[in-house]
């Protein structure tokens, strides 16, 4: 059962990593304009680099 000593922290760590990623997407305003993001992905202007301007306040 010693394997648990490794596996439990790994599983909790993965969960925390997922949560951290979710919090990051939330902070980066990725849920503020779903309709706009859906349209923007078809736009050629952002093929080479993402838009560098500040996000609009929602």
């Amino acid at each position: 059962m010693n394997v648990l000593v490794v596996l439990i922290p790994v599983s909790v760590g993965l969960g925390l990593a997922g949560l951290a990623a979710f919090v990051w997407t939330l902070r980066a305003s990725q849920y503020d304009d779903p309709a706009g993001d859906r349209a923007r992905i078809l736009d050629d202007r952002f093929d080479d680099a993402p838009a560098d301007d500040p996000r609009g306040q929602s």
Partner: protein
Amino acid sequence: MTAACAACSAVDVGASDAPNGGGAIQLHLPDIHCAACIAEVEEALRAAPGVTGARVNLTLKRASVEGGGLTATPLIEALAAAGHRAQELDPSLLAGQGGEMRDLLMRTGVAGFAMMNVMLLSVAVWSGAADATAQLFHLISAAIAIPAVAFAGRPFFASALRALGHGRLNMDVPISLAIVLAAGVSLMNALTGSEQHAWFDAALALTFFLLIGRCLDQAGRRAARSAAAELAALDVPQAILLTDAGPRVVRAETLAPGDRIEVRPGDRFPADGIVAEGRSDIDRSALNGESAPAPVAPGGAVSAGEINLSGPLVVTVERAGRDTALSRLTDLVATAEAQRSRYSGVADRAARAYAPLVHILSAGAFVAWFWATADGWRALDVAIATLVITCPCALGLAVPAVSTVATGRLFRRGLLVKSQTALERLAEVDMVVFDKTGTLTTGAARLTGSPEPRALALAAGLATASRHPYSQAIRAAAEARGIAPAAVSEVVEVPGRGVEAQHEGRRVRLGHPGWIGAAGDGVMLDDGEGGAVRFTFEEEMRPEAPALIATLKARGLPVALLSGDGEGTVRAASNTLGIDDAHARMTPEDKADWLAARAGEGRRVLMVGDGLNDSAALAGAHASLAPASGLEAARAVADVVLVGDDLGSVADLLITAKGSLVRMRENIGISALYNIVAVPVAVLGFASPFLAALAMSVSSLTVTLNSLRRQA
């Protein structure tokens, strides 16, 4: 880009010229809908001088522009050149939006990730871990679940405490009780190493699914609500105050009696008052539904909400802000609204029946088991199982999931559903009542008959100088018949009278019959050779109105017309549209009383209107709709705001609402079915955390999928 809305003309004053203090300017872009629009708008804005950054939010149909010392007017002009309508938004009215959604998403995320982890640990216990291993797993689960539940469950706990504080029960009381009991008792078990069930995953799953319901609820109304707030923010009423130091733009509510204000042609009067200088025509349709413009001269009274049409006026303010005729209607509206707020939706009614039942069942299970086995822990375990299994995750999703889908679909068709219970009330509608001016008619005039071309050409030439609706109708008629306006020179608009000019060396006039030297209605043309030609007008119907009325009647819904306008015009309109039940000269009180009488007969009426004189009726009707071109007061009380130009979507709205109500009832039935199956199992003590997790997930999933099913 289509017909310019009435709100846009009122915005002339709204776009303030004061430099913005460094903050971002928010622009409302009602027409954007695709990737190309985003690119065009952002490029146009970035090319404007002084702009450092611009970003479009398509969901909220809004652009945020940053830069130093920006003013809205040049930006709006730049966008107009690129073919996009834009209006400035008052940032103070938009403050505080969007924060709740982020907060809810955060809590959902925490509950979701905690649930996944605890589930994994629970699988080990379900598949046979025992003794010290099981206790270790339970303790780790507790370490994850307790803080997660404490954070994620806050909205439910807060709402439950509020309800209990008022001595009431709402759905959040059994939810909070189930979450707290499940987590608390499991923690005790984990600490003492008892062999009882651990409910950590159930507590988290419950929180997670219910939070998804809350998020859907929030997201569905966010777009609609923000658009409604934008409509309100558009109408920042401003006034041009004449001071000794020159004219100054001020907010309308800061006006005081005795102030002198200038009202330009095309503007709405910001306050009640008496005309001090100038002559003009005013459009009173917003206040009393009269379609024909009325002339005013010095000494004439004007009211806030009316529109100045032809000449600049100087008005001495008599009443401003909350004392205006416009605001006095609010009392009437408040009374009517209070009657409607007692309506409770399907979800409320289900929850009210359900919440006590859940408590009685689990308390009964506890008492019975304690009496039968004298084992307090076992009895508590069964009680928790009952509480958790009956807790209506699916019920929490049943209504929000459907209304999210339906309001989203309606929003794409240009209908903003503002009220939470509006869909259910719309589904029950069995009678439709319309206002006339501005609702069934466009508010514009149309020339009747076919005057001879030479007279029409001359009239059109004169009309070019004027903003009066009749002038616009003459120009439109000339254009439609391909007649070029005659060349006139030295054009002078005589406000409140008409227009005069020189044509081929003669003095020609177009204006009120009384001015030309005749009696009667309409407009007379004096061609300078002794001949006088009369032009008569009728109201222009919305092109989709006759079809809409026919559709509604074909569906067996009685249609009525309530108007503040005179007999003649109302009869003409009702004959054109085929409405038998038409009433003229209705005051706002008459309209509200008429609707109350119909409600007394058991009718559930949908009121469609745009004016101030309709606002009390809109608030009192079972459900209500106002076009976005209507006054702010009407839009504020209406359940649904029609943003597009197509009144015909009212028919679709009723169908969608009916379909949604059916879907909501199905969903509640489905979640009740799960409970009917699960409750005996739980009460008899056969429920395990595994079964609870399964039942909750499957019922929530079924309900969500059922809501997403496309309506036939």
